[in-house]
């Protein structure tokens, strides 16, 4: 599903070059649940962003579902994302001016799906928020917002689900609920799941754990 080869990511910080990822090579098979762990600043979220095409590597190649994404332009990347993957952010990133149901409906409306809102309400029901569709994000708790984000991420039945610290802003009890929900949704759809976390307990649910340190993979590259 994912094929990463010799990916290097360098940024400039205060005029000095900073290497975030240093020759990362990684394969993730279709249907696999892969956890990327590591300390803060190890490059976990950067790697996930590169897989989603949110950023471009300084060197190396990334192929997702057979598509080499490093050479795609912005619009092609947007099309790639809506056809291939769903993304869950640590801080939910719901659109504040839209209700919960409208937030979930956005990916469906972008592709022109019929009955987007009613399908969105169904997805909210799947995450236990069937009665909260008319609420705005500000009226929802952190856990509820993350459940809305999960419903939005799986709205188009993507083959790949990327989750960046999905429980990072939640208390431990709510975090457990969210991760169970994430794994259940992933199992039900049979999609590939790559999640970034520094929580060892959360990582233990994965089929494979990849450890990153200072931009290098310490184990579990393939």
């Amino acid at each position, binding site marked *: 599903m994912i094929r990463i080869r010799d990916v290097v990511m360098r940024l400039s910080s205060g005029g000095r070059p900073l290497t975030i990822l240093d020759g990362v090579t990684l394969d993730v098979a279709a249907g696999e649940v892969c956890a990327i762990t590591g300390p803060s600043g190890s490059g976990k979220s950067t790697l996930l962003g590169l897989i989603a095409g949110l950023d471009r590597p300084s060197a190396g190649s990334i192929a997702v579902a057979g598509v080499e994404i490093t050479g795609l332009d912005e619009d092609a990347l*947007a099309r790639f*994302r809506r*056809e291939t993957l769903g993304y869950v952010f640590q801080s939910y990133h719901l659109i504040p001016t839209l209700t919960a149901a409208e937030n979930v409906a956005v990916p469906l*409306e*972008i592709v022109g799906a019929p009955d987007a809102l009613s399908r969105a309400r169904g997805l909210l029901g799947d995450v236990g928020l069937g009665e909260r569709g008319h609420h705005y994000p500000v009226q929802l708790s952190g856990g509820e917002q993350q459940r809305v984000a999960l419903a939005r991420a799986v709205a188009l039945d993507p083959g790949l689900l990327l989750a960046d610290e999905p429980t990072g802003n939640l208390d431990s009890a709510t975090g457990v609920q969210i991760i169970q929900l994430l794994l259940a949704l992933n199992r039900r759809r049979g999609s590939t799941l790559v999640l970034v976390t520094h929580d060892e307990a959360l990582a233990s649910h994965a089929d494979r754990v990849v450890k990153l340190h200072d931009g290098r993979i310490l184990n579990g590259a393939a």
Partner: protein
Amino acid sequence: MSLAFSLRMAWRETRGAWRHFIVFFGCVALGVAALVSVGTFAANLDRTLGREARTRTGGDLELRSARPLDDDVRTALAELARGGAATTTVRELAAMARAPARGATLLVELKAVEGEYPLYGRVETVPAAPLDTLLADRDGAGGAVVEARLLERLGLAVGDPLVVGAARFTVTGVLVREPDRSMGLVTLGPRVLIGGPALERTGLLQVGSRVRYRTLARLPAGVTARVAGADLARSIGDPAVRIAAFDEAQPGLRRFFSQLATYLGLVGLASLLVGGVGIASSVTTFFRRQLVTIAILKCLGAGSRVLLVTYLIQILSLGLLGSLAGAALGVAAQPLLVRVLAPFAPFSKSSGMRGRSPVGSRSACSRRCSVRSGRSWPSAAFPRR
């Protein structure tokens, strides 16, 4: 990916951030309102001036000179009359009027008219009576119709005697409206309207008298005023006689209103430009705040064209709505604009309002003393009541 999505997102974003758009909406609406109100005001004035041009000129053609018309001109006018035109002569001069009982005097604008006057419009008087009747001689004294402020200044009433030059008159009515009075900035005094023969008896027509001779002509149907005027000018060949068609008379008035409209238009444009700063500021702030939403939408797979269309629809719709609201506001503000501008204009607003007697506005008239006129703004500039 559809336009429907862009429309839906534009609506949702506006719905969610309407407070933010109040500034944007307000700037557009106020700027457009300023331009529309000035433009409408100017258009109304121009249309009214055009519509009332014949009445305000007093005829289709006006021949103006500082001395009596000579025989050549009279012959040319007689030729015009044979073709079906009606003509009349008006003589205007400044004179002293005296109230014989009190001995008080007042500088007045004397106007002597002949039987056909007025060729267009009508003279309104109190009491309402035919002008011939009011100006007719009685007991050896001519009839005089005067403006209300003359009565106030000289302590006279209708029926009292009035002396102008060597002739005696009786005040037979109050002049409410005189259709062809020119709109100058300064007048010398109140109007006194008398008959043509009575002017001869005043002894004011002497060598050196500053008399303005106006000959007015109403042309038969099918004769173009400008063409007839040009023909007349060619046959007369006297540069001392100024000939003007109704639509080219009183150029100063039109110029005044044109300049007023230009000035107000510039003020409106300046306000729109200042409003533009507000618009730019609110749009910039809005998009800065929207960057996260735009990033989320891109992450969810929205292409740049969809995002561009979404926000273009939002801004253009709000701009359009603001413009429509501004246009409505501009039209609705017409009465207010007239009310605000009236004190700065060289016209008496009150006397221009229909249904209100100038007798009732005497105090306002007298406050304006000699630098005023009893004339009105063009009626379309004011709501007709």
